[in-house]
């Protein structure tokens, strides 16, 4: 599970590094966090769904084993 999460974060990091170009305009302080979320939003969703799926499968196996 941890290996899977680490792998997904790695994909996210590579995605960010490849795509994020320098933004050369004046913006309000704090906007960096805002923009950062918009870039990472899609992958955060995928990560969350994958985590839920993996946990569901894991619980299914544990349940079957207990039964």
């Amino acid at each position, binding site marked *: 599970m941890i290996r899977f999460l680490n792998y997904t*974060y790695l994909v996210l990091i590579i995605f960010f590094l490849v795509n994020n170009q320098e933004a050369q305009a*004046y913006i309000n302080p704090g906007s960096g966090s*805002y923009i950062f*979320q918009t870039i990472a*939003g899609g992958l955060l969703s995928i990560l969350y769904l994958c*985590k839920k799926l993996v946990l569901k499968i894991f619980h299914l196996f544990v349940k079957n084993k207990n039964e």
Partner: protein
Amino acid sequence: MNNTSFRDNSGFVFKHNGEIYRQINTVYKDEYDKFISCGLYEELIKKEMLIPHKEVSLPDINNEKLYKCIKPEQIDYISYPYEWCFSELKEAALLTLNIQKTALKYNMSLKDASAFNIQFKEGKPIFIDTLSFETYKENQPWIAYGQFCRHFLAPLALMSYKDISLNKLLITNIDGIPIELCCKLLPLKAKLRPIIFFHIVLHAISIKKSEIKGHKTNMNKGGGRFFAQNRLKNTCLENIDNESPCQEKLNPKFSKLAMTGLIDSLEDCIKDLKLPELKTEWGNYYTNTNYSKEAFTQKGDIITEFIKKLRPETVCDLGANRGDFSRTVINACPQTRCLSFDIDPAAVEENYKLVKQNRETRILPLTLDLTNPTPAIGFANKERCSFTERFTCDTVLALALIHHLAISNNLPFNNIAKYFSTIGKYLIIEFVPKDDSKVQILLSTREDIFQNYTEECFENEFSNYYTIIEKRAITGSKRTIYLMERR
């Protein structure tokens, strides 16, 4: 108006007849009504996550901005994140995320994620800012994400990977430790963890890139779709406050699922942060003490007797270590609440763990350096109050402390007595004479310039501010415990 809430447009906190109230401005009317009616308030109260309040009408309060007045349940003592130990800050962070998750269920969201919005009540963190909720805006990122990282994630990561006392950086950074600073301070080991790399390192890069200003953008140079997208967002973000039509073009497409993913990821990150094995200066203090078992028990009995006599509502235990005598105090008197201070954050951490383990509701462990108490900070030095302004109590407990203040820190008895007398009416203090083995250790590496460090001088100097009511020698040691009353 209270000096802590002037930045908030939605309302403000004020004191009336010594009690805390909050005005809700008409500008926040719709959000407040939705917050109460949608069931979110009820759920948060039920789960003891939010401070309950009552709507009141005060005839004296009348101004054109007034929508409603609320009276929140009163909190005895206000403490700040730079006074908390690691576990206290971690619990406060998890509570904030939990509240955001609950709010999302009701289509609402937190607009602030300030650590100052959390206080400790009956041994647990509780959210105190009723006006922090707003309607969840579809496709908008979490506006408080940056603040959450600065107020919680950055200090916790630094405490976990660098030094347990680094939450003190919040004193010099009232709106949280800048992510870029945290990134510079974190060791490589921490940065290599994917989740930290994501929320701190990449986040810091994004902030840095966003703050580059004054250049004309050139779409032809190294453009790419994200460059163009960012440029549009940046231009739009400039105008958000002005409600420019440009805001409509922003279209950040941050779905609710992404928001849930973000909160879940932050929760994993915070839960994952742990302290390395604690090496507290005072951890073995009681096992390495020069007291015999009988003398130690007798000391506890004397404290119990004094506390039973005084029956104080509040006690400040200064130099409490892991809070052993704070526990003696609360066990002696069922209504007494004890603030348990120590300079060593590792000892405070141990103390808080005991509070959780024993489910104690009347002890609040906090870090405090008595030789340099928490200062007042913020705008006009009035946004966050100093230790002295916030903590006054019925009884001060200062056990095995005087030699650290007088000998290690060269503080004259007179100054110590004067300061203690401003904190509480009664004082229970232990005098540790020069020939005590602990004092001898302190003197072993320095010249003894303390000719006035005698019991007689101690009594004389303290008598300037206190009347000595009782004095008890601890059998089997050279120490004496005094009960004094402020003049």
